């Protein structure tokens, strides 16, 4: 009824509503639909762009309105909020209880150092033009003018280390592949982001797929590889759609294929889907899977850089590692390595997850502390109860107690406190968590996901669940056995799955011993006798 008469004469207002899977999971599709419907009902023409997520996930669905002063954010906007927003004049950036002012001035956002995620949430991930308008493909253009050794040298000088978890210097890997003579080499992107608490790979692939494609193309130029595969987990169907659309656009515009930008250089790229196996995030297991086999870990050496996919020299890097390459080639190694501290250079996209009030993605230079992330960004726990433990680095990462929250985000600092940074996932638990249960889950997870190749992992994980069950049932003498078993897993496993499972188990035991001592020891029964009913709490045992 109260049509804004100026709306008709002025050009359509541009709105952004994310198509990111996390935003969709809380109703972004319904919100987008409601915006279009309500605009049509009011006779207002709007231009709706489906962007990636800005990473402030507690505000999703986040609707951004483009105003002369910049993009103004409203969120979380459900479909039911939409008529009220129109009524309040949100198309002009006017106040509303859900308004947060300019997106880039929001507390969660403005202190971030967005390098790898510079365009995520800003641009339209389906639009190559938008990518090009935001410094896209400048890194590739620069790389095409360099010889391969000079590209590798730039990556080495940037200090970029593998962001998948192992933190191996990317430049050294690339140099090895460059120096390996072969008729066919490959670039493989590890997009099997299986760690609980991590979603940066997914957000990047959905929000800015072109940057990953550009990074892989540069890796191909640097090492002489002409074929690339993105190994993507099946749990990310939206990322697959985004990647395949971007690959088709890049191919059509000559950024991929037989003759990249008229240089005569070739690079072909395809997406391959995983099938629900955590172990396939381990690089040699991933290569087996790409070859069409069971995802069983390979012995190393030979290194994948020398004998990788189909026995050929292969660059295998995580999504974030490869997606950080374009900005390094565009802005230079100095620009990138200026961020960070010690041997951890550049930025890390951290992910706040679990029981946290303001979960989401925070890209910061290395050096920020865990406490700043948990309270300044995260706002404490979602439940409002005290934070008791955080698990950093996925299911193989250590549980850290409050006394370690001042640890800076730095690979070496985390190693020093008996943890690991991994892929930058931070899972928060409040004081209702039972750390005995978490330790048992870690062993159970290892048993479920073990590839079965090495004995400590295959059998040790199952024995580990049994030992923890007996310990939790009150058999205190099992602690010694558990520590001994963890020692075997640490030193005897072929890969990180068995090798690192003791991290969550022992950190829980060391920092939260009280959770393992709840049950009264059933003195009558010897340890072995409790085995069949071990999963039952001690109360069930005869008194």
């Amino acid at each position: 009824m109260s049509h804004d008469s100026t709306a008709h004469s002025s050009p359509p207002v541009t709105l952004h509503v994310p198509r990111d899977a996390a935003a969709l999971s809380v109703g972004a599709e319904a919100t987008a639909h409601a915006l279009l419907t309500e605009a049509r009902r009011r006779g207002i023409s709007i231009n709706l762009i489906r962007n990636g997520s800005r990473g402030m996930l507690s505000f999703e669905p986040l609707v951004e309105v483009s105003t002369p002063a910049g993009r103004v954010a409203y969120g979380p906007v459900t479909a039911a909020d939409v008529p009220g927003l129109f009524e309040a004049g949100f198309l002009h950036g006017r106040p509303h209880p859900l308004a947060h002012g300019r997106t880039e001035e929001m507390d969660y956002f403005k202190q971030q150092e967005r390098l790898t995620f510079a365009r995520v949430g800003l641009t339209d991930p389906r639009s190559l033009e938008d990518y090009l308008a935001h410094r896209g493909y400048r890194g590739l253009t620069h790389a095409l003018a360099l010889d391969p050794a000079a590209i590798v040298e730039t990556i080495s000088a940037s200090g970029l280390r593998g962001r998948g978890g192992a933190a191996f210097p990317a430049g050294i890997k690339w140099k090895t592949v460059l120096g390996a003579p072969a008729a066919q080499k490959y670039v493989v992107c590890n997009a099997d982001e299986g760690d609980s608490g991590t979603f940066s790979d997914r957000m990047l692939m959905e929000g800015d797929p072109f940057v990953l494609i550009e990074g892989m193309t540069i890796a191909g130029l640097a090492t002489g590889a002409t074929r690339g595969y993105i190994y993507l987990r099946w749990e990310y169907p939206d990322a697959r759609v985004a990647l395949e659309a971007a690959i088709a656009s890049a191919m059509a515009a000559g950024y991929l294929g037989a003759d990249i930008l008229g240089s005569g250089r070739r690079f072909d790229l395809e997406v391959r889907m995983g099938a629900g196996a955590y172990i396939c995030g381990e690089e040699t297991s991933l290569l087996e899977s790409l070859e069409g086999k069971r995802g069983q870990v390979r012995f190393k050496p030979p290194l994948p850089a020398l004998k990788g996919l189909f026995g050929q020299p292969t660059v295998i890097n995580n999504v974030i590692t490869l997606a950080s390459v374009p900005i390094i080639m565009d802005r230079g190694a100095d620009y990138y390595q200026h961020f960070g501290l010690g041997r951890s250079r550049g930025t890390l996209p951290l992910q706040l997850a679990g029981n946290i009030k303001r979960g989401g993605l925070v890209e910061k230079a290395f050096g920020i502390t865990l406490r700043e992330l948990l309270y300044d960004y995260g706002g404490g726990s979602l439940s409002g109860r005290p934070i008791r433990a955080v698990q950093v680095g996925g299911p193989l990462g250590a549980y850290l107690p409050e006394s370690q929250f001042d640890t800076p985000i730095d690979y070496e600092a985390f190693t020093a406190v008996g943890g690991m940074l991994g892929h930058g996932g931070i899972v928060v638990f409040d004081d209702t968590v039972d750390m005995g249960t978490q330790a048992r889950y870690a062993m159970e997870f290892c048993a479920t996901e073990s590839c079965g190749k090495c004995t400590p992992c295959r059998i040790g994980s199952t024995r580990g669940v049994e030992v923890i069950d007996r310990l939790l049932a009150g058999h205190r003498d099992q602690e010694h056995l558990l520590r001994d078993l963890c020692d075997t897993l640490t030193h005897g496993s072929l890969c990180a799955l068995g090798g690192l499972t003791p991290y969550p188990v022992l950190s829980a035991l060391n920092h939260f011993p009280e959770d393992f001592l709840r049950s009264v020891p059933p003195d009558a029964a010897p340890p072995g006798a409790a085995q069949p009913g071990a999963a039952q709490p001690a109360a069930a045992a005869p008194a």
Partner: protein
Amino acid sequence: MTGKPTRRVIPIQREVGDGLDSRERATVAAACGRLKAEAGSLLPVLHAVQSALGHVPKAAVPMIAGELNLSVAEVHGVISFYHYFRTTPAGRHVVHVCRAEACQAVGATALEAHAKRLLGIDYHGTTADGAVSLEPVYCLGNCALGPSVMVDERLVGRVTTGRFDELMSDCRAPAESS
């Protein structure tokens, strides 16, 4: 060479494709035909078959093995290694419930128990009406908005027990054409 008694050959292997109906056989043949030239094509073939049929029938294994020049054991080994592939028909909807730590921190364990109770099945089971198969999953990448479930290919976050009930009644509603 001469004078040997003729021996009757008893086939120990059944005809390839036995046990599949014509639609299933055509699907498997099409997937193999389209993909077998690609390097490492077994997983893409299995995905194509499962995506079209809802599962990879056991009877398809010899056919896939023959087409890709692999042994039956190799194909079986791959299918059984990966959690995602199934050899029994799924319900009309497959519901994956996240069991990983970030979802545990916001109540996933209670949601799992509720899901099993509501549907009256355990993991890997299918409801009697054939509407829903329940599967565990280890992380859906929605760790800041848990607990999460995936209904077919749709991710749903902040799933309370009430929200789960709504999702399931949508799945179990009749009058859906295929």
